[in-house]
Every structure is written in C-alpha cells, then in structure tokens.
C-alpha cells in the first residue's frame, strides 16, 4: 500500500485515528524505497487507547507493514505517556508509526505480543523504564535494569542523583573562591530539575 492508500484506508477503518504523512523515520533512514511513489514518506497514525490493537492489526494486515521494528514510550508529562511503534513493510518499503497516549495515573495498554511476537522484549523494556503495564504480556519482567532497582529511570521526573549530589564545577562565578552554598542566584547544572533535591 502506498502512503496515500494507507491514509485513505485508515480514515475509513479507524474512525478515531488521526493520520499524517511526512519525511519522518523514512527520511532519517534514507529513502529505502526510492522510486516507489509515496514510499519515502512515513505515515503516522495516532489512535486513542481503545483502538490500539485494531490499529496494529490494520497496519499488519491491510497496510502490509508486517515487520516490527521497535516499540517505546515518550514521557509527555501532563498528557501521559505516548507509546510509539515503528512498523515497516518489507514488500513496499513503507514506514509506519503507530502512536497512542496513555494517562499517567493509569498507564495500561493491551500488549502487542498477540500480533507481533517481537514486541515481547520491547514491552518489557518500556515497562521497566516508564512503568507502562501491558495487559496480556506473557512475562512482564525487567529486562535491562539490575535486580532490586527502584523507580522508572526514563521518566522525566526521575532525576539523575549523581548530578545533584556532585558539586558542579561551573556553579562558581569567575573570580569566586568557593561556590555559594544556597543562594538565590545559584546556577543549576543542566539536567537537574529546579529545587531538587528537596530540602
């Protein structure tokens, strides 16, 4: 299916979806299907949470994007977590991004392992890094983090403790002998949220 066809079909079959086509992932990776009309464009399909599996099934069966590349999450802070899946069609060279939003208070989503077995490890990693729960996953155990690790490190509110604990050499002003202890004008190093660590 070309990008235009996918857009048309998605609009028909997934009423809640919002579809766009741009250079996106295909542009970054180089036009894999140069010469095939529309293949250089990445189609992005944004669906609400309840249409997640329907959108993935549409992408695999109707749009022909049967190669599962990666699944990850983006911490959109107040809006929740955006789960993104990159699919690819080996036949036509079409790139497809399927996205959804889950709220922060209830980060649950049906597992994609029923449609793509390769999503197993990707969902385990997304679960341990962001705390998103994938219902129906055969074994949602931590994958990369050491045993006993607490917290979800890739969330934006997970600060890097070493950066706050270590004195930043750049906190001193030129001509100053020692860094000011707790002054209003104290520079905060990049990567440390304002007011962290809490007093």
């Amino acid at each position, binding site marked *: 299916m070309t990008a235009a066809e996918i857009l048309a079909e998605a609009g028909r079959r997934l009423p809640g979806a919002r579809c766009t086509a741009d250079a996106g992932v295909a542009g970054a990776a180089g036009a894999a299907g140069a010469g095939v009309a529309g293949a250089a464009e990445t189609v992005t399909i944004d669906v609400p949470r309840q249409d997640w599996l329907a959108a993935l099934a549409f992408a695999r069966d109707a749009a022909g994007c049967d190669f599962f590349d990666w699944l990850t999450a983006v911490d959109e802070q107040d809006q929740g977590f955006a789960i993104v899946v990159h699919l690819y069609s080996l036949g036509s060279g079409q790139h497809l991004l399927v996205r959804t939003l889950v709220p922060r208070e209830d980060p649950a989503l049906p597992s994609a392992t029923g449609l793509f077995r390769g999503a197993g490890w990707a969902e385990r990693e997304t679960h341990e890094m962001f705390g998103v729960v994938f219902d129906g996953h055969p074994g949602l155990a931590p994958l*990369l*983090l*050491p045993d006993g690790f607490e917290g979800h490190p890739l969330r934006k509110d997970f600060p*890097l403790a*070493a*950066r706050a604990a270590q004195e930043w050499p750049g906190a001193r002003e030129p001509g100053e002998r020692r860094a000011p202890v707790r002054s209003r004008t104290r520079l905060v190093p990049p990567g440390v949220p304002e007011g962290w660590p809490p007093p």
Partner: protein
Amino acid sequence: MAAVDLPVPRRGGTAAAGTPAPAGAISAGAISAGGFSLRVFDAGLACCAVEVSAALRRCAELLPGGGAGPGGEPGTHGGAGAGGQAGPVNVLVVAGTVTDKLAPLVLAAYRDLPEPRRVLSFGACSNSGGPYWDSYCVTKGADQIIPVDVYVPGCPPRPEALICGLQLLRDTGGEQR
C-alpha cells in the same frame, strides 16, 4: 574520498627494516624482558574492547618467539623469568563501561583469576564511570568493586596506550595494590 594510508607511528622518520631501534624506543617485546612476563585477559565490555583487541593482536605478532603462548592466550611469553618470578603475571584488562548489572561478573572474573594477578583499567568508563558518571545504572569505575593497579586514560585510549600501561605495570615492580 580515497582511503588514507596511515603509517605506523615512528620516532624520528622512517626506519629501514632491520635497523636497530633507536635508544629509548618502546617495544612490546620489552614487556617480557627482565623476567617479567604477562598473560593478558581482556574483559572487553564496550568500545574500548576494540582498541584492546588491536593492541593484543599486535602484541601477538611482535613478541619474540611467535604469537600465542601456551594455552593460546595472545601476549603470552612463556616460561619463568630469571628475576625469581614464579610465572607469568595474570593481568585483567577491564575495557569498557562497568554497568551495575554486569558488575558481579567482573568481580567473578577477578576472583577466578589465579595469582599473581593485577588489574589494568582501560578507558574513562572503567576508570571512573567516564561519560556515564551520572547514569542510573553505571558503576563509577571498576575500582569500586575490584582493586585496580594501573589506570589508562582515554576515550578510547589508543592501542599503544595499553602498551604504555602494561609497561607501567612492569616498572612498578608488579606490586599489587
């Protein structure tokens, strides 16, 4: 762009084959001189492993008596030395980032190393955590879990820097920390 033919670094211009090395030249064979011989075990954890492989491969070519010694380890110069040394010193080269998940394995590798043993930390990541010093899952230096004898700085260090580090190991008398 045409491939660049990088010459092997030389001291003071090109030397014809067979000419004696100028005084003060560093040689891989000299590491084995004076009764001090090494058996190098490379814990290649990340990118620094590529540089260590390049250095050890060169060592195998340059050490007198041929390439791999008994047991097939590259860099071995077999036999006991005249200086009263019991046998080759086993050197664990930790090259690459020591993550929290991998730290127990590095510790196990050190514990399984027979005496006499030394540890050489190769690269910024195993010296102190390096670029990943602020990460949530990186051990800030191999010396957090095992005693390190020599630190080789770099990111990654040149293969020749490993030779310099092994030389320092020899020159400090191989005293274990």
